[in-house]
């Protein structure tokens, strides 16, 4: 029987500094990570580079980190690299500014707050958002994360959850408004 290619075994190979593990990670998760990057960058070359940067980052972080779900760990790294690159491109007017990213929709959550709070502890803000999402029902939670973590298209999310595009937009709109209220309530910023 073929040995099972489990996340646990893969992570152990990172710990054993077995460089071949990256080939297996590429085979197992490469295409998925590419879609994470490409959803943000909309550019094949840039996305491929992001995925490669992800492998390098993973190699540097494991050990000591031992991720419980490898794909989630990798996807978070990929998203971070892709957003950095997207911001870079946008400032250089290279591609990034030519389409509206789902992440731009988040502007209505923080509308009017940008000048008020100087610095924000991002990890603490992430905890607040997680807490907020955890209290929502699973559909809302997943739709929100698909749109604003994975930057999936509305059409794809609608197909994924068997809903109309209008229905998905309504969920997102409601959830953004609710999240804004929650963040205001928690004192992240003040209503202007």
């Amino acid at each position, binding site marked *: 029987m073929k040995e099972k290619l489990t996340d646990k075994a893969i992570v152990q190979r990172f710990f054993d500094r077995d460089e071949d593990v990256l080939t297996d990670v590429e085979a197992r998760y490469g295409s998925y990570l590419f879609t994470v990057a490409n959803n943000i960058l909309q550019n094949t070359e840039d996305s491929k580079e992001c995925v490669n940067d992800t492998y390098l980052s993973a190699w540097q972080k494991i050990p000591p980190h031992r991720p*419980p779900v490898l794909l989630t760990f990798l996807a978070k790294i990929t998203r971070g690299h892709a957003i950095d690159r997207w911001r870079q491109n946008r400032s250089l007017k290279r591609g990034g500014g030519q389409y509206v990213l789902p992440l731009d929709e*988040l502007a209505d959550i923080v509308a009017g707050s940008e000048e008020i709070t100087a610095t924000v502890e*991002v*990890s603490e803000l992430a905890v607040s958002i997680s807490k907020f999402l*955890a209290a929502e029902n699973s559909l809302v939670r997943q739709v929100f994360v698909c749109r604003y973590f994975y930057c999936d298209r509305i059409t794809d999310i609608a197909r994924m959850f068997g809903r109309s595009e209008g229905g998905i937009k309504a969920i997102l709109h409601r959830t953004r408004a609710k999240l804004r209220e929650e963040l205001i309530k928690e004192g992240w910023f003040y209503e202007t």
Partner: protein
Amino acid sequence: MKLNDLQDALGQIDDSLVTEAGRARGKKKPPLWHKIGAVAAAIALVLTSIMIIQGTRQKNIAGSDVMALATPEYPTIHKRPSDELLYGSESDQQAYDKAFSLWSADFQKQRNQPQGYKDGVISLTRKTNRLLLTSDGENRVYSPLNIYLALSLLAETTGGDTREEILQVLSVDTIEMLRKKAGSLWQAHYMNDGYTTSLLANSIWFDNKLSIKKETMKILQDIYKAAAFQGDMSSSAMTEQLQKWLNEQTDNLLESSVENEGFDEDTLMALASTILFRARWNDEFNEGNTGKSIFHSPAGSIETDFMSESKDNTYYWGDKFAAICKGLTYSGSMWFFLPDEGVNVNELLDDPQVDAILQNCMDYDQQKFLIVNFKVPKFDVMSEIQLGQALQDLGITKAFTASADFSPTSEDAGLFVSDASHAARVMIDENGVTGAAYTLIYVAACKPPDETVDFVLDRPFLFVVQGHDGVPLFVGVVNQP
């Protein structure tokens, strides 16, 4: 706060949220959740049931960090308006009528089912009582309805001779007929109107390696309102999710059994079915009348709390037992069968007179309406039953072999049922809200009783909780209250 902060924070949200959504996305990304191929595979069948008489809390299915393939949509049932609205200090006839009519429409829709839909469960109960309840002095309890619905899930996921054997045990000729009956049973016994809580839930669990057929998934979702979850079944996360689901559906009342449930590396699929039932006595016991008394268990005498009442009731008797029935508000009744002195309670498990009373007590000859001095111990009985052998004794054998046919679920070869367990618990006590409807009807229809009889359950006895339609929801033997 800047927009960038929010965008970055979303990149750092809790792993479980990213994983959950990532798995939902995986449904349209076959390269991620690729099929590894059929390996030696096992299917676990988990059946759990719970009954509480009284109580008000309810639980809903909570979110899962395992990929949810299907989330069931349960019927919406309006709350039955409280009598307070009709007779209380702030009575409002119009509001009551409106609320009652909304509730009544939902109630009728659930309860009105085609004739014959319950025959299979009743027939299964006759076959399983002796198999599952015979004991050497321990408490035993199980839920026939729960087992019927779980076996229906198993029938849906199997094919060929494997399915035929299950259909035979469920007393139906075709899978289409089973769908009609199981669907009706589900409808008839799903109720959450503020008076009766009867929550049925089903779920199916798959390993990532298993390729699943969508058609069967759809049937499980539509007919059986089954939730579906997929993940790495060898992971502790998946076992934790199963336990969480079981505990949520059973309001944590079977925690000690649930903690023993879980998947191992060979498990590729599991079917789970639960029932959570709460009802109130039509006439509650007066707590002031509860007192210590002796129960003669096979292990010796036990001093325990007995509830008591002295009320007019119908008293039934057979060659080996006496019986009475106590009504549950809008949701059925509970039967108590006391074997005559010297008769082992196990002898009642397939007694035709017990069966006759349960099927149609009105036509049963040996009954009399009189004052019953009723004493019953407060009890909380729980039992875990390894169902595997019992199912095979019933005739479901192929599902347990390497040649089992699970083709409706997956083309992956080598699937078979590796284990089946059932856990159930029934508790009774004095509390509850008195409903007048049933009692009043009986009293009005009969002459005042002029005799009395003592009905004291101070030795092992059999009980049956029947749904509103006579379907046995729970059957048990109390040896040690």
